[in-house]
Structures are given as C-alpha cells and as structure tokens.
C-alpha cells in the first residue's frame, strides 16, 4: 500500500473521518444545538463533493488500487458526486421532519454517512469482496435507520422485514459469488471477466452462480418478484428515512448491477440479459398497476419505485455503453425526483402525523401555489411527460432497448408509462382540482424551501438543458 494509493481513496477516507468526527462531536453538542451536527454533516458532504470533483478522472481512464480491489473511474466519480449532493439535500429535508417527530438525533447523521461510505465503497469496488463489504455497510446502516423511531410499531416491523429479507438477499448474493469464484478462480471482477472471455469454467456452475447474483441484485433494486420489502419499508419507516432509502441507495443499486454484470460478467451477457428482461417487464407491469390501487402516497411511491427500477433495468439489459449511460441518467434523475416528492410529503406533514394519505394533497394549489407547482413538475417528471427531466430519462432507456432489438419490450414500457401517468395525474388532480380540507398555510424553514425550490426547478431546467447531463453520463462509459 502506497501513499499514492491512499490518495486515490481520498474521498472515502474523508467521509469516514467526517462520520467519526460527527459521531464524537455529537456527544458534546447539547440537545438544543443539534443544528450544529446537521451543519457539520452538510458541509462535510459539500466538501466531499468539491474533493471528488477536483480528483475526477478524465473519460476512459481507470486506476486500480489496494491489490486491485478498489477502482477509480469516471463512472464512479460522477456517481459519488451525485450521491453527496443528493444526500446533502436529503439532510436538509430530513432535519425539518425529524425535528417535528422528535427524532432529531446525531445517530441519523452518523448512520447516513456510514451508509454513504458503503455506497462509495460499492461504487468503487473492483472485487466481489469489496462489493459485498460496501453493500453490507450500506444495508446494516439502513436497517438501523428504518428502526430510528423506536416507539413506532410500524417502524420496527418494517426494519425487521427489511433486515430478514435483506440478509437473505445478501446470502444469495454471497452464495452466487462463491459459485462464480469456484468457476473462474478469482474474486477480481476484471479477472473473472477475462476468464469468461477465455472460455474458462463449467457453464453449469457459472449459470448457477449468475442466477444467484442476479437475484441478489434484483432484491437490492426491488425488482419484481423480489420487491416485497419495498412497500412495507417505505410505508413503515419515518418519512425522512424513506426519503433517504428512495434516493442515494438507488445509485448504489445501479453501481452494483454495472460492476457485477458489466465489469465482471459481461461474458455472460446473453444469459443475464434474458433474466433482466423478465425482471424489467414484471416490475413495469406490477409496479404501475399496484400503484394505482394505493391510497397511501408512501406506498404509491414505493410501487412507483418498483416500476422505475424496471425502466432502469431496460438500460442495463441492453448491455451497451449507451444503455448503461441511459440507466445511469435514469438513476440520477430518479433519485432527484424521488427526493423532491418525499420532501413535499414532509412539507405537508405536521407535528402530529405524517401527511402520507393521498387526500392530504387536496387543494394544495390553494394553500401554497408555489409548492403545488413544484410538486406538479416533479409528478409530471415522474410520469415522463416532456419537457421535464423524467422524459429524457425514459426515452433514452427506451432507445437503448430498441437498439438492443427488444421493440416489444419498448412497447410494453411505454404502455406502462401511460398506466403510470394515471396515478401521478391523480395527485395533480387532488392538488389543483379539489378544494382544501384544511385552510392553514405551510410552514418550513428557509433552507428547506430553498432546496425544495432548487429541486423542483431542476426538473424543468435539467429537462430543457438535458444535453449536459446526458454527455456526462455518456462520458462515464467511453
């Protein structure tokens, strides 16, 4: 291990240090000055973003470190920068919600930062061991976060469910990895890939391993039929935690899929493509139809997540650089949209209960026209209506899947987008066409409103000027 190698992992080292410092500092910060912990965490993230931006590698360059278990490339760097920024927004949104729910504690920040570290390790993994380590760090921190509200029955139930199903998925993934190790004789993804191109390995063993790995990935993404945990966890966790789960870990899910399936198992593309086709098609169908039946908006967004993961899988299954870039664009766009949508739920909630019923959105346009407008842009973006961000994500994955020769899947995807439009429109209808049941306006701190405004306007701005983000994603796969 050399100093130069440590320098490659500078962002990870910084985030780890920041998490430890905050863990310690929080012990000495008085209850009423908890805002300081928040500020420390947010500034750490901003600093980490600056650090990663300065260290960002040019397109096409890949550097390995720590005996080839750690990789730095443009794909990872870009994803990390978005992870910091989205997490910073999540912190701002969550503070408002946690404070009212009486959950405003230092643990939230420490656990989230450790989860972020897990995401970063996962993103930069070039060996199956590193990949697994990152994944587990993320998962364990998230289980604890879901149970953050100890008093809540639903929260504990969700955490338990998440923990058991998540452990099962991790076990399956690990088993798949061990089979792959047995077949190829290596844990390094690059060596696995080389071995596969060399024609090594028992094809029976490889297929077995692949099936378990794909199941593990599908569990983590929440793709049908491995989606059962998603609605319950989204519903049971405090809204601030749901907000977290629905944003940054999606970027990790993308990285997990791309590192494993592309960097490691691209030689088996023909095999995993078929599996992903099934996963994507089922996710699109079930996610969208089940979302229509929900009256709880957290559950509705949970099913909508499932369908969005189906869309993201479309890009991955194409197996081309264009497809991966489209999936990456989709993951980033989805994380932004989802963060914004949950932020509006937080905004509508008051101290007593979360505004997690669809009816809580009634007449929002009268109570707060600007926030209704922001939410409308977020919803149309989720529905994939031009000129909002979500449309540009959708057409790219659809183009990738047509280029891969699956025109029928593209037709299915757009039909499901029409089905999906219905339940997003229903929320717009509640906000704009119905009269409010409560008259009082909405209160939120300035920073919350500023970030929400930026988030909502980004739906339009990143849609109108999507060229930059598209080029950025493409540059990750040169």
């Amino acid at each position, binding site marked *: 291990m050399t100093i130069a190698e440590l320098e490659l992992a500078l962002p990870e080292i910084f985030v780890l240090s920041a998490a430890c410092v905050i863990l310690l500092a929080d012990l000495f910060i008085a209850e009423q000055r908890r805002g300081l912990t928040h500020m420390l965490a947010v500034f750490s993230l901003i600093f980490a973003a600056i650090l990663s931006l300065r260290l960002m590698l040019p397109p096409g360059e890949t550097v390995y470190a720590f005996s080839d278990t750690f990789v730095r490339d443009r794909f990872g760097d870009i994803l990390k920068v978005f992870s910091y920024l989205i997490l910073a927004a999540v912190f701002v949104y969550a503070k408002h919600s946690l404070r009212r729910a009486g959950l405003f504690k230092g643990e939230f920040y420490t656990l989230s930062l450790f989860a972020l570290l897990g995401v970063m390790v996962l993103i930069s993994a070039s060996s199956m061991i590193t990949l697994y380590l990152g994944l587990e760090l993320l998962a364990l921190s998230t289980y604890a976060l879901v149970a953050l509200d100890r008093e809540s029955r639903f929260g504990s139930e969700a955490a338990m469910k998440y923990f058991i199903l998540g452990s099962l998925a991790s076990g399956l993934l690990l088993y798949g990895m061990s089979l792959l190790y047995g077949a190829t004789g290596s844990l390094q993804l690059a060596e696995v890939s080389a071995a596969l191109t060399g024609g090594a390995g028992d094809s029976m063993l490889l297929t077995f391993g692949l099936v378990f790995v794909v199941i593990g990935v599908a569990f983590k993404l929440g793709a049908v039929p491995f989606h059962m945990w998603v609605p319950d966890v989204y519903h049971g966790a405090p809204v601030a935690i749901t907000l977290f789960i629905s944003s940054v870990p999606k970027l990790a899910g993308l990285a997990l899929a791309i590192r494993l399936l592309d960097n490691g198992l691209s030689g088996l593309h023909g095999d995993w493509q078929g599996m992903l086709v099934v996963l994507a098609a089922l996710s699109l169908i079930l996610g969208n139809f089940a979302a229509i039946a929900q009256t709880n908006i957290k559950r509705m967004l949970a099913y909508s997540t499932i369908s969005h993961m189906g869309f993201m899988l479309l890009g991955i299954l194409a197996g081309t650089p264009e497809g991966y870039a489209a999936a990456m664009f989709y993951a980033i766009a989805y994380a932004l949209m989802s963060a914004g949508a949950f932020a509006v739920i937080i905004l509508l909630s008051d101290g007593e209960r979360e505004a997690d019923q669809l009816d809580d959105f009634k007449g929002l346009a009268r109570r707060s026209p600007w926030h209704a407008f922001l939410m409308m842009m977020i919803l*149309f973006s989720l529905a994939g*209506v*031009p*000129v909002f961000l979500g*449309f540009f994500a959708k*057409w790219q994955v*659809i*183009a990738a899947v*047509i*280029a891969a020769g699956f*025109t029928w899947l*593209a*037709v299915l995807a*757009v*039909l499901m*987008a*029409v089905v999906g*439009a*219905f339940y997003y*429109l*229903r929320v*717009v*209808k509640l906000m*704009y*066409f119905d009269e409010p049941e409560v008259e009082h306006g909405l209160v939120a701190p300035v920073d919350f409103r500023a970030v929400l405004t930026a988030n909502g306007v980004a739906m339009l701005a990143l849609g109108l000027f*999507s*060229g930059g983000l*598209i*080029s950025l994603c*493409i540059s990750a796969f040169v």
Partner: protein
Amino acid sequence: MFEWPLLSLLVWLPIFGAAAVVAIASGMPKLVRPLALAVAVLTFLLSLVLYAGFDVSTAAMQFEERSVWIEAFNIHYHLGVDGLSLPLILLTTLIGVLIIIGGWTIQDRPHLYLASFLVLQGLTVGVFAALDALLFYVFFEAMLVPMFLIIGIWGGPNRIYATIKFFLFTFFGSVFMLIALLWLYLQSGSFAILDLHQLPIALNAQILIFLAFLIAFAVKVPMWPVHTWLPDAHVEAPTGGSVVLAAVMLKIGGYGLVRFSLPITPDAAAALDWLVIGLSLVAIAYIGFVALAQSDMKKLIAYSSISHMGFVTLGLFLAFAISRNTGDVTGAGLGITGGMVQMISHGFISGAMFLAVGVLYDRVHSREISSYGGVANTMPWFAMFAVLFFMANSGLPGTSGFVGEFMVILAAFHASFWFAFVAGITLLLGAAYSLWLVKRVFYGEIANNAVAGLKDLSAREWLLMTILAVFVLGVGIWPFPLIEMMEASVANLVEHILQSKVEGS
C-alpha cells in the same frame, strides 16, 4: 445583417409572458389581464411580420433557426416554416388573442387561466415550427399539461373525468410515435424531420411506422373510433378551452399527418390509404348523424368538429387514389390543399361557434338546446353572428366552410365517385344539424323568462364576433392568399409522396 429569431420569439414570448403574468398577480392583480392581452397581441403582430416576410414561391423552409440541443444524440433546436405550417401558426396566434379577450371575465385565479393559455399558445407554435422530430415530440406532449389544467380547474361538473380521459388518450397515442421516432433515429442517426423525409425504408417497416404515427395523430384529429375523448373534453372545458381545442389543437393531428405520415412513409400511406379514407368517411357520415341527435349545444359542435375533421383526413389521403386513377400528378394536390384550407376554416368556424355557445352559457348557464328558443328576439345582433357561423359550418358558399369542403369533394370525385357521394352527404347532414340548432335556439317564440331577460352582446363580445366573422367571410370570398401560401409546399409534398422510398433500402 442581424435577423430577429422570429420563430423563437413566437414560441417563447408567450411562455415568458405567462411567467410574468403569474409573477405580477399578487402584487398588481389589476394588470394581469392587460399584460396577458399585450403579450398575445404582440405575438400576433410578430406572426404578421412572419407572414409579410414569407416567400410563397418556394417550398423550402424559411426563417430557419438551428442550434445544437442534445449533442450526444444529434438533436437540434431547429425551427422553420413552410407553406404548410405558416397558416396554422397564424391561426394559433390569432386564436390566442381571441382567447385572452374571451377569458376577460374569468374570476377564479385569472392569472393562472391566462398564463395557461399563453403557455399553450407558445407550445402550439413550437409544434408547428419544429423541424427536429424530438423537439416536435416535446412540444406535442408538453401541450397536454396546460390543457389538462385548463379543463380540470375551470371546467364543468364532470371535468375531472374529462380531463384525465383527454390526457391519457393523447398520451397513449403519442407514445407509439415516440417509439417510431426512436426507431427512425436508430436507422438514420438523425432526428431532423427533413432527413427523415429522405430516408429509404422497407415497406413492412414503413407500415409499422405509419400505423404508429396514425395512432398518435388519429387520437389528436380525432378520427373515428378514437374520438370519444373529444365530446367529453369539449363539453366540460371552459369556453376558452373548447375554442383552443377545436380551433388549434385538433389541427396538430392533421399537421402531423402531412409533416410525418405522408412524407416519411409514403409507400405505407399509399398502401393503407383505404384505411384512412374509410375511417374518414365513417367520421363524416356516421358522426354527422350522431351530431344530429345531440341535445347539448357543445356536444353537437364537438361531433360536428369530428365530422369536419373527417374532411381534412379524407382530403389529405386522396392524392394516391387520384394519381392511380388519372396518372396525373398536378391534380393530386387538390385534396391536400382542400384539407389544409378546411383546417384553417374549421379553426375559425368551430372557434366562433364555441364562443357563441359561451355567450349564451355566460348568461343562462345552460348548454341544453331545450333551455333556449327565440333568442333572436332578445339578442338580434348576436343572432346575426351566430346564424352566420352556423351557416358557415354547414358549408354555405361565400363562407370559408365552403371552400375547403368543395375542394375536397372535387378531389374525391377524381378518386372515386363513391367517396364523393358519401362525403357529399355531409353537406346535407351538416346543414341539417346546424340549421336545426339555429331554428330551435334562435327562432320561434321566446321560450322562457331566462331568454326574455337576455341582454345583447357587450362591446367585448362584439369585438370577438366581428373579428371571426371577418375571417370566415374573408376566406370564403377570397381564399386566394391562403391557397397561394401553401401552393408551393403542397406541390412539393405531392411530388415527394408519389415517389417510392422502398428502393435503396
């Protein structure tokens, strides 16, 4: 010499104007309406500058603007007009002004109402001016958002059903177009519409693409049997919404057919012209009978719109049959010209009829024909205008309604006697339902106290009615400028679509 980016101004001025209207609403509520009107009038004047500078002798795109939008996919912000899009842009900007004047009395959140219409207007001009297929799609879809809000917020009692149906129908139709466009992009590496016109495509691929486009545009036109959203949307929409829907938005379907379906997939269009002609004839005849049976004025006009838009689609697809029958290329453009003229004319007439119903509805709050009778006794001036518009709707010579229908029927004779025969029936039917409505609403004894207490047109309504009457009569008496505008482009289009694109693929 510096040239003003006129088309961009026409697209963005109303959109930014809408933002300004909303921005001043809380501070200066009195200025909301004048500002919206100023924006709309300025946009209209700019479109007249466009008209003045337009060269009618060429089919090439004019006033082109082109800059890179999404570099990675070779997508451009590319605008331009030719003889097919210019008349529709002028129609859009004119109707835009009328809507703002017509919406003057809206009381519920007037700034949002006016802003929605301004945004809608800007996006509609964008649809007609876009020369990049993805840009077109973006405008085409984005238009749904303001219209969704207009019907949903200011519409009638059943507005929510109507507006969601409207949105989902159109969204459903257009996603197939997206797939077709992406497929074309993967073949050609370009989203430029003019490049796609030249792209050779095998016949079976053409047929699939043609059908994908047809679903998108047939919903918009709307053609039978995907027309069912229109009567609902029309009945529930506020007056302004109905006017824009009938006068402008339906035309996007017809425009899409001439801009995409015919030139990109001419062989499929030739092979399947029987399908479009058949659906058009069903719309013309069957929907005409349906209109006859309506008791709600707005529904009657909505069905009449579908029937008249059937003329448009009929005219557009006659060229192939004519050239097969006569071997003559020059006469083949007659149907397309007729269809285009019919679109403009229907824009004026349907807009005027909806405004007329709006005038009555504002006073009596009923759309039922049976709530009226003898309106001519209490509102003589209004009756004069309304009778003119309904007469024009039935195709009275001297009004714009006659010109387009006459050209299409003439072209239909060249194609087949039976096409012309069925299409001719509509002249009877159109006269029947239009005049019967006039008789029941305007003539006879004064039916009830509500009618007895009616006041004649206000100055604002006078203005609206006069402007529309001038255009209806103007195009009817002297259609030459309109036909001259589109002549070169139509000739070019006909020449293009009668050449096979299959070879070389």
